[in-house]
């Protein structure tokens, strides 16, 4: 067994390397050889193969993602944009906020608890790496059919994992989603988002500059977990007496991560850190090559100094290991002692593993021999770029022609009443309290709003009341019917949710979950969704600060519904004026804002009552969304409304029910002129919200809506112990509550 050093590689050009097994294509391998001017060493091959993977290099998505950069709206709030660990926006009063959503879909299917837990761990490290204190998490989830036995395995494990990790970190969970659809059966989507807060001057970047500065690896020891392909290399290059099949699933240690947060923030506070990077996918390969390529010089790393959990690991495995709860900091030499002392205080292992050099190479040594000698940019930034073919699917027209508006509608009031209850009790529309009650939403003592509110809201400054709000939304059914519109609807809904809480939407992050990019149908969905999202952001003035792409969510030939999830971040100057969803005051007037059309394509009604997906999704009018948002924010600022709830899946009856249950009050509704009861209750037209207006404010409020051209229709009053639709039916609140709350516990409790 010889060590595959750079020297050895130069002298043995014809040695066959397992590039194929590591997932590289032949032309990619040839490019590596061309870049290096020789064959790569095993360690170099390991680095290129993980860094050039779809997950790390965005090779299929890059050409489309570019639009987010090309169509940036004018927005003074952007401080750090796409490309860093997470984007940063200015929220005023000297504060900056960083937020991002990421996917951990596949690991969560294999090992639901640990997969989901480490998903939270990973996104939180991205936030710390920007210099921020994490203040909240959110978890948009998509699962297979609610009554499928495997969903019973996956969902409880995922929820326990997200809770187990987030609760133990002390991060309030303030929002998310839970959607069931058979299309996610073999590919559940576990997306996790996090928000962090810092002062402007504390923003940190993943950058190694200043020759002589030390590279410190700190956190957990490196073990053999998460090494996808490295074991192949290891078994080719080394003896096979050691554990050869390294698990692809990692076990998280939230306690270790909590210490990592505290010690990192303490080091930031003392200004000890020049550059910082978390270790996530591709582990040390990623951290070293990105730090070095973003900086001015090169980097030299002694791999022998990496603290190991398993002494049998090969250098390739150390470079590829995805052991959790590790970070890498660049620190000036005279500050190293202080940095190490802070780590010691928090019982965190920290080791100097290298230093920044004045060259431009990333050099890695093992047992005194050089095993990596590369230009770090070629690893981190110059990965392959694919222009994958795409084309509108042949079935798209037929799908859109299968009009949901033509489905048979309830013929009698009794039937309408029955369908209302059936919808409210359906897994997608039912209360998600069984899930969210497993998450700590109170920790840190700054939670102003959390589930089941439209948006989560966190107080940032105790004295001034400055706060931030976040909502995540996505509708795979709409996006399947029309990807361009579906993506914009996700954006619109999330924007609307934030505005309904009283906060002003500022910027977005996204998590784009799609099938295989090698399928032109999927690639078209992807291209269209990005185009829609980028156009939408330009129009709404909310730049994309960053995000995540998850491809290959596919079982055999069947891709999931294209599912872009959008997280909108908003700011509120004083959380005291936040608008909750609860109808708390009897006698207040209910107004419906926006226009209602016959729009049932992709609706919850079409799914629950007819198991149907076809037609066109609701129309999007982003100017209307913006106007609605402005009105909701003004109304909150001027104290004109006491409650607001956006309308989305399930339509008006869904929102009114949620607000009634939250407030413990009933409502009497009147079907407005020009609408039939069915359309009034179930249509999913976008750009709408329902608000509760004190009688004393009615005139002022309607005048404002009238003056600004937003249709506001009085639809009823908060009153009594039942939800009554005049001339149609009444349902006691207790019956509604039972229908709405018992479904999920009955399935998963």
């Amino acid at each position, binding site marked *: 067994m010889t060590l595959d050093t750079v020297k050895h590689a130069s002298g043995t050009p014809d040695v066959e390397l397992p590039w194929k097994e590591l997932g590289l294509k032949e032309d990619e391998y040839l490019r590596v050889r061309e870049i290096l001017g020789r064959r790569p060493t095993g360690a170099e091959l390991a680095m290129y193969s993980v860094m050039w993977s779809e997950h790390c290099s965005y090779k299929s998505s890059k050409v489309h993602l570019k639009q987010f950069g090309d169509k940036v709206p004018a927005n003074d709030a952007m401080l750090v944009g796409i490309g860093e660990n997470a984007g940063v926006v200015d929220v005023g009063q000297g504060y900056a906020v960083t937020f991002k959503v990421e996917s951990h879909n596949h690991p969560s299917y294999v090992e639901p608890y640990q997969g989901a837990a480490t998903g939270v761990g990973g996104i939180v490290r991205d936030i710390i790496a920007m210099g921020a204190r994490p203040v909240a998490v959110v978890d948009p989830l998509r699962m297979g059919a609610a009554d499928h036995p495997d969903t019973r395995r996956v969902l409880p494990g995922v929820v*326990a994992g997200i809770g187990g990790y987030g609760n*133990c970190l002390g991060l309030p969970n303030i929002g998310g989603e839970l959607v069931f659809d058979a299309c996610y059966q073999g590919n559940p989507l576990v997306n996790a988002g996090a928000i962090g807060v810092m002062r402007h001057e504390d923003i940190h970047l993943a950058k190694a500059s200043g020759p002589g500065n030390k590279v410190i690896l700190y956190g957990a020891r490196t073990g053999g977990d998460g090494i996808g392909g490295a074991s192949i290399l290891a078994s080719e290059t080394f003896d096979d007496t050691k554990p050869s099949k390294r698990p692809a699933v990692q076990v998280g240690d939230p306690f270790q991560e909590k210490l990592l947060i505290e010690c990192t923030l303490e080091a930031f506070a003392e200004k000890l850190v020049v550059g910082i990077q978390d270790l996530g996918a591709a582990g040390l390969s990623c951290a070293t090559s990105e730090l070095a390529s973003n900086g001015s010089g090169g980097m030299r790393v002694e791999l022998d100094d990496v603290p190991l959990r398993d002494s049998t690991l090969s250098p390739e495995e150390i470079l590829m290991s995805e052991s959790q709860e590790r970070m890498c900091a660049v620190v000036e030499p005279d500050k190293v002692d202080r940095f190490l002392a802070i780590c010691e205080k928090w019982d965190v292992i920290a080791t100097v593993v290298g230093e920044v050099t004045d060259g431009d190479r990333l050099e890695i040594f093992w047992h005194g021999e050089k095993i990596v000698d590369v230009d770090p940019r070629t690893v981190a930034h110059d990965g392959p770029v694919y222009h994958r073919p795409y084309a509108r699917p042949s079935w798209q027209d037929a799908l859109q022609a299968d009009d949901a508006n033509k489905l048979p509608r309830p013929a009698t009031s009794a039937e309408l009443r029955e369908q209302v209850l059936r919808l409210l009790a359906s897994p997608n529309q039912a209360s998600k309290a069984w899930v969210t009650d*497993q998450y700590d939403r109170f920790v840190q*003592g700054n939670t102003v709003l959390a589930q089941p509110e439209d948006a989560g809201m966190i107080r940032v400054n105790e004295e001034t009341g400055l706060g931030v709000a976040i909502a995540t939304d996505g509708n795979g059914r709409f996006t399947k019917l029309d990807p361009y519109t579906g993506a914009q609807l996700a954006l619109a809904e999330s924007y609307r949710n934030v505005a309904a809480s009283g906060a002003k939407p500022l910027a977005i992050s996204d998590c784009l979950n799609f099938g295989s990019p090698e399928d032109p149908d999927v690639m078209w969905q992807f291209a269209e969704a990005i185009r829609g999202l980028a156009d939408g952001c330009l129009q709404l003035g909310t730049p994309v600060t960053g995000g995540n792409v998850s491809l290959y969510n596919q079982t055999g030939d069947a891709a999931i519904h294209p599912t872009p999830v959008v997280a909108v971040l908003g700011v509120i100057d004083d959380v005291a004026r936040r608008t909750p969803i609860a109808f708390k005051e009897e006698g207040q007037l209910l107004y419906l804002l926006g226009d209602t059309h016959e729009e049932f394509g992709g609706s919850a009604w079409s799914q629950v009552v007819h198991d149907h997906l076809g037609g066109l999704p609701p129309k999007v009018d982003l100017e209307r969304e913006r106007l609605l948002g402005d009105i909701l924010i003004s109304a909150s600022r001027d104290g004109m409304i006491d409650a607001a709830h956006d309308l989305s899946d399930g339509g008006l009856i869904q929102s009114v029910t949620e607000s009634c249950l939250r407030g413990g009050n009933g409502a009497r509704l009147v079907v407005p002129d020009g609408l039939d009861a069915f359309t009034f209750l179930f249509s999913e037209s976008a750009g709408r919200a329902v608000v509760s207006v004190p009688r004393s404010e009615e005139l002022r409020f309607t005048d404002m809506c009238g003056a600004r051209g937003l249709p506001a229709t009085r639809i009823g009053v908060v009153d009594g112990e039942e939800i009554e639709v005049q001339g149609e039916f009444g349902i006691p609140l207790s019956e509604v509550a039972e229908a709405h709350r018992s479904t999920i516990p009955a399935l998963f409790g």
Partner: protein
Amino acid sequence: MTARIGVVTFPGTLDDRDSLRAVRIAGAEPVPLWHRDKDLHQVDAVVLAGGFSYGDYLRAGAISRFSPVMATVIEQAKAGMPVLGICNGFQILTESHLLPGAMLRNNHLHFICRDQKLRVERADTAWTADYSAGQEISVPLKNIDGRYVADERTLDELEAEGRVAFRYLDGNPNGSLRDIAGVSNAAGNVVGLMPHPEHAVEPLIGTGRTDGLGFFTSILKKLVSA
């Protein structure tokens, strides 16, 4: 002169900053204490805050109990210093045998986070004097190891001596025996409970109630008048 109330931070403590804030809002002087430091820095009372100290590995509170700061807290508590254990703090107090019984995994096996109604059974401990006996309050509950157990004899003793300080109302959230949410020691200076009064001290935040503030005003009054 106001009272100095210490809040201990162990590795993995989460609600320390919230407890410090609650102390401040009540008008006392909050003093952060560190687990490795035996010195209590002249505090008049100590709060052991919630969280997952040492990840709650092994058992909740089992590892923290052996920290340097706890050696002093145990000694001082026995000498009469007021100590309040909230959630993880309560678990540490039972592991330290300052309070009887033990905490186990909730009977439904899930973490549970909700607004929880309680009855304050004892309004004459150091931490509950601002309540009246029998008063009903609502404060957040959030834990996975919140099931209070003790043997029958201990439970009978606790009842007989009136040391069940808080009881769950409107449904037992975790299978705690006799609906016990919190207990006190015989002297009434050491009190532990699973729900989180420190999360219910500001009208805008959390559940929007301030039912938990009484814990902190109780101790402040007691210390200032002493």
